[in-house]
């Protein structure tokens, strides 16, 4: 799938200090009353890298900025600050014309396989569409590419699926078609936005297995998910987001088995376990996820934090290696670890 091997030194994606804000609509009354212009601080200084053959899971609750981060990486949203480097090249300010070739390299898989395929397109046309849009290959070459992409996505033999319409396929098969449509352009970065949350439990593992396989072949995969169990079992690294920041980041097993940040600890404690005997008392944080319009001073987690000390109200902690970390790549943003 991957044409050239990049030098292992340059990551596929490097995101540095990304900031994305949206204005809040004030409404007519608000404007007339000259209320101050408010902003949603969707993403506030997020940095991460994604290497070849790696799956990074961005985990967090709704409103934490994980989807905004992914959309900005894809340049579907404009960053207010920060850089996004693809293979060392800064793409955060490229014009849409110069971006076009890059659109082939970074592909996205959407959450809902029932919505992401045009109901009027047969599988063949749906998978072929990216090639047609980019005017790639002859008709014969495109046929081969489509068949190959379907095979990679686990729809084998492809002939069985080519002439079907989406409504004739199961949810898992549709998601595989969507994956095939992303693979047909030979991308090297795949952004998977909740790729299995709409699928039945019994077929999820199959789709995640395909993603694992692609990662093993050298793709870099950025998976957006709210499901920590899935992230723990399939991702190489996990980055936990809270209110627009990454609060903890590291190798998946280390983050799950040795969580450092109090938010990560709370989040892990409320994930339901399969075994009824493991009914641990969940550490339920009270209240809702706070509003990204009014971000608390100091550590943004302090109002809900069970470990809060006086300093937390004033110090905004940076990511650093915690004392109790068991891996050199494990970082958390908390002054108490």
């Amino acid at each position: 799938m991957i044409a050239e091997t990049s030098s292992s030194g340059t990551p596929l994606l490097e995101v540095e200090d990304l900031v994305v804000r949206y204005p809040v609509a004030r409404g007519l009354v608000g404007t007339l009353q000259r209320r101050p212009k408010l902003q949603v601080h969707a993403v506030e200084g997020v940095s991460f890298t994604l290497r070849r053959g790696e799956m990074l899971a961005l985990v967090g609750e709704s409103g934490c900025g994980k989807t905004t981060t992914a959309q900005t990486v894809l340049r579907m949203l404009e960053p207010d600050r920060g850089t996004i480097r693809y293979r060392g090249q800064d793409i955060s300010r490229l014009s849409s014309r110069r971006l076009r070739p890059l659109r082939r390299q970074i592909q996205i898989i959407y959450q809902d396989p029932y919505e992401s395929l045009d109901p009027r397109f047969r599988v063949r046309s749906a998978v072929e569409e990216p090639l047609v849009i980019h005017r790639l290959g002859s008709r014969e070459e495109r046929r081969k590419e489509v068949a190959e992409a379907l095979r990679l996505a686990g729809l084998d033999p492809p002939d069985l699926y080519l002439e079907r319409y989406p409504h004739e396929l199961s949810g898992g098969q549709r998601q595989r078609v969507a994956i095939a449509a992303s693979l047909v352009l030979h991308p090297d970065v795949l952004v998977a936005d909740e790729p299995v949350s709409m699928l039945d439990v019994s077929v999820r593992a199959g789709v995640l297995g395909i993603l694992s396989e692609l990662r093993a072949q050298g793709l870099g995969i950025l998976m957006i998910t709210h499901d920590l169990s899935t992230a723990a079992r399939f991702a190489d690294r996990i980055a936990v987001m809270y209110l627009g920041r990454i609060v903890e980041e590291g190798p998946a097993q280390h983050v799950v088995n040795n969580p450092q940040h109090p938010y990560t600890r709370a989040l892990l404690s409320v994930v339901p376990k399969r075994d009824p005997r493991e009914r641990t008392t969940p550490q339920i944080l009270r209240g809702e996820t706070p509003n990204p319009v009014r971000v608390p001073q100091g550590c943004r987690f302090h109002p809900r934090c069970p470990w809060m000390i006086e300093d937390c109200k004033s110090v905004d902690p940076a990511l650093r290696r915690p004392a109790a970390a068991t891996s050199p790549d494990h970082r958390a943003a908390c002054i108490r670890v």
Partner: protein
Amino acid sequence: MTIVEAASAPEAPASVRAGVFRHVLGQPQAIVGLAVVSVFALVALLEPVLISGDPKEKVAAVFQAPSSAHLLGTDGGGADMLKLLAAGAQISLLVGFAAAVVSALIGGSFGLLAGFFGGKTDIVLMRITDYVLVIPDVPLMVVAAALFGRSITNIILIIGIIYWTTTARLIRAQVKSVRERVYVRRARALGAGNWRLIGKHVLPQVAPLLIANTVLLVAYAIFAEMFITFLGLGDPSLISWGRLIENAFTDDAVLNNAWWAIVPPGVCVMLVVLGSTLLGQAMEDTLNPRLRVGHLSVRRFRIRPVPRTEP
């Protein structure tokens, strides 16, 4: 996928393509509508074969009552009413369908462009639509017909230009929702141009609704043609149902008690309007998500005996 979903929501978007026409024809009113419109369309198409000679030719006495020779009697010029009706069907339906197509073209384009591009395009196009919408139809038609002359082309254009506004609004709303579908966003993210998005993804999705709306417009257009002609603003050289009614009035059919000169063209207009309305509404009920009211119905399930399990 899920069988239960399929059972409770038979109009799932994915199966629309295959199911629309079966579903439309599953409704009795659609079959009635289609049958009525088809009969008239057939008569209009076969008119040259069915009728020999000039229908306006004097064949009997003026205002002769229906008889075996002339089933619907004769009009104020002594011409056979049945022949006149058949000839009228041709013009009335032609005007009706052509004007509906003009409306659909204008309204469809306005709705498509406004809904797809949004922003300033949307504001400008919808403002124009609003202005046209608030102009009273009848005076405008009268003025336009008087100004631009009384040819059939002008009549078609005038009717078409007046009735496109509802189509534009309907299509715009639908396009706005289709535009936000994930598969459209995906194609856009891939770098697909606007025309590809419209042609490949958006238009095919709204086309059935546009067709249903056009069928409804046929009813309006035929009715409009009737009263334009009745007001004496139609093409004087052509026979249409409106013209037959106008003639009946100018020839004092009422004073002569010649109901057969007025009622049949009126009934024909009524039947075609009713037929295309029934058909159009059945199609729109199937296609327009806003009109689905199944969930509002009273829930009354049935009880049946437990099936005997085989040993």
